């Protein structure tokens, strides 16, 4: 890796579920590095550990062992409250099923993370102005007061994208962001992610769909809790070179 700022650096992280004799290792020694501004896909079949890895990268859980540096800070030993703070300040989530609050306007959904920003309480007007700008960017300026059930799937996902950006995160994590969408809406969402990437946002996306993964610069493929290989995707998605990753 070059001297570029590293957003994600994991060192031999493992995740073991269960206790004692009947423990299952979901991750057994994953070391990856993702630089600022990268657009990376994590692929793998179910059971490969990609969801577990995503949860750890998103600070929703902690690795059993190993270290995880997020934006240079070791977050692998933080407690629940500290992890919540990291999610609040540094991470934006885009989920497969959008995960918007029901019966809550698009605007309020987008400002939700700011509600929990204890270190930097904002005035409502300030939060609203920022959210309106983001909703405009994702093409929903006319629907800021609509509630999720009044929006299409693609529109809901765009609200979720706006929400993931409200805290100026260092990392946006997508969990099958197009999984629930038809191909047309999925295309729109990918285009939007490309736009964000072009603006310098670091995006890590978990998917099982090679066509979606091909949109990214790099695909990290997991198998049985380990990195299997890393694919560098070409600009036009035609030339791909595979590099067998040396597992530790």
């Amino acid at each position: 890796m070059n001297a570029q700022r590293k957003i994600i650096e994991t060192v031999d992280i493992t995740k073991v579920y269960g206790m004692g004799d009947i423990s299952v290792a979901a991750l057994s020694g994953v070391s990856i590095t993702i630089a600022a501004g990268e657009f990376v896909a994590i692929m793998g079949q179910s059971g490969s550990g990609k969801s577990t890895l995503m949860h750890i990268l998103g600070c929703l859980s902690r690795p059993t062992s190993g270290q995880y540096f997020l934006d240079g800070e070791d977050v692998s030993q933080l407690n629940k409250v500290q992890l919540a703070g990291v999610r609040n300040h540094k991470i934006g989530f885009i989920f497969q099923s959008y995960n918007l609050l029901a019966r809550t306007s698009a605007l309020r959904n987008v400002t939700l993370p700011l509600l929990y920003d204890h270190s930097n309480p904002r005035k409502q007007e300030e939060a609203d102005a920022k959210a309106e700008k983001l909703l405009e960017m994702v093409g929903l300026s006319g629907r800021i007061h609509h509630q999720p059930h009044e929006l299409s799937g693609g529109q809901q996902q765009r609200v979720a994208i706006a929400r993931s950006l409200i805290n100026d995160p260092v990392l946006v994590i997508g969990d099958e962001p197009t999984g629930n969408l038809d191909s047309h809406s999925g295309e729109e969402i990918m285009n939007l992610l490309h736009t964000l990437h072009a603006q310098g946002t670091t995006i890590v996306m978990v998917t099982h769909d090679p066509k979606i993964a091909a949109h990214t610069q790099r695909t990290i493929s997991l198998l049985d809790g380990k990195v299997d290989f890393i694919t560098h995707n070409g600009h036009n998605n035609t030339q791909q070179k595979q590099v067998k990753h040396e597992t530790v």
Partner: protein
Amino acid sequence: MKLSEAASIAWEAILKNKVRSFLTMLGIIIGVAAVIIMVAISAGTEATIQEQITSLGSNLVFIQGSMKRGGPGQAPSGGLVFDDAAAIEEGVSGVTSVVVEQNSSSNIKYSDLTLADISILGTTSGFPSVRDMEIADGRYFTDKEIDRKQKMVVLGAALATELFGEEDPINQIITVGTTKMTVIGVMAEKGLVGTTNYDSYIFMPITVVFQKFTPSQFARFLGDSIRMIYVEVDPDENIEDIITQTRLLLVKRHDLTLDTADFTVTTQQDIISTQESTTSAFRSLLAWVAGVSLIVGGIGIMNIMLVSVTERTREIGIRQSVGATPDDIRLQFLTEALMLSVVGGLIGIGVGIGGAYIFGSLSDMRTVVQLGSVALAFGSAAIVGAFFGYYPANQAAKLDPIEALRYE
């Protein structure tokens, strides 16, 4: 998260489920209203009793005969007898007047109308004065008429209306039991005195009661038995001294000792304290009952909050994923529980005060809304909300974000 934000989230959550929120609050509403109404009723009752007791007139000593069966071969001791009254008046210093009463009951007949089982009160002439009762019409009987066993009666206000309606009762002849007697007066309305309703009594010279209604084969030897002696005491005298003198005099006359006395002596003060202890027991019982309904209301809140936490697991997961800490989640649900109970409490105060007012005006019970009970009920509601809201809120705070997000 600021408290104001937590409050606005809680308020929105309550409004999203209006019917359920209302049903949840109902327990608290009923609890708070019950406390306020119960306390208002018992305070009203207490105020009424206080007024009645004060209206009995002060410096009054009550001596009540307690019937005692004699041992084998002895005549039953009849307790107080008529001559005791005269002995007290003569033998105890500081006594301003002595009044005697004996009770019986009988049917009363006037023209075609017969009233069954009317309470008869045989008294001496000082009765209206010691019991602080007014004569509305006509007059009370005199000592001379008592001595002559004149067949004359004075009617309680309600009884007079029942017998005569619009007609003037004075100088009418009525039949009491089998004896024809002349109505010479009607008492003013008095209302309840303790538990006695003098308005439905018929008053007559005590000598007539002895002769016609409570004849006794022992009267010749023991004297005519009486129920009660009222002793009115000079306010400047020491009432305790007078009571002691009276007790000694009576046990001597009855040939008994203070330990075996066949009568009891009470003062106005004794009656007030007895009444107070009864009403305060009554009041605390009611408060407990109402308090239990508040707790039941609290359990209702806990129940609904637990359902709500389960239903909103996904929402909790979403909030956690964007950075809500366990404290944030706990605060949100605790605020919601607290708000349910506080809003319920406020509605309960309205219902309670309104209910006490309506109850007071529709029934003949008096209600006095006590500010203390309003504060107590509302405070308890809030505490109940916080107490029963804490467990569900804590359950919510403990949820794992990944599990919560997966929840369908």
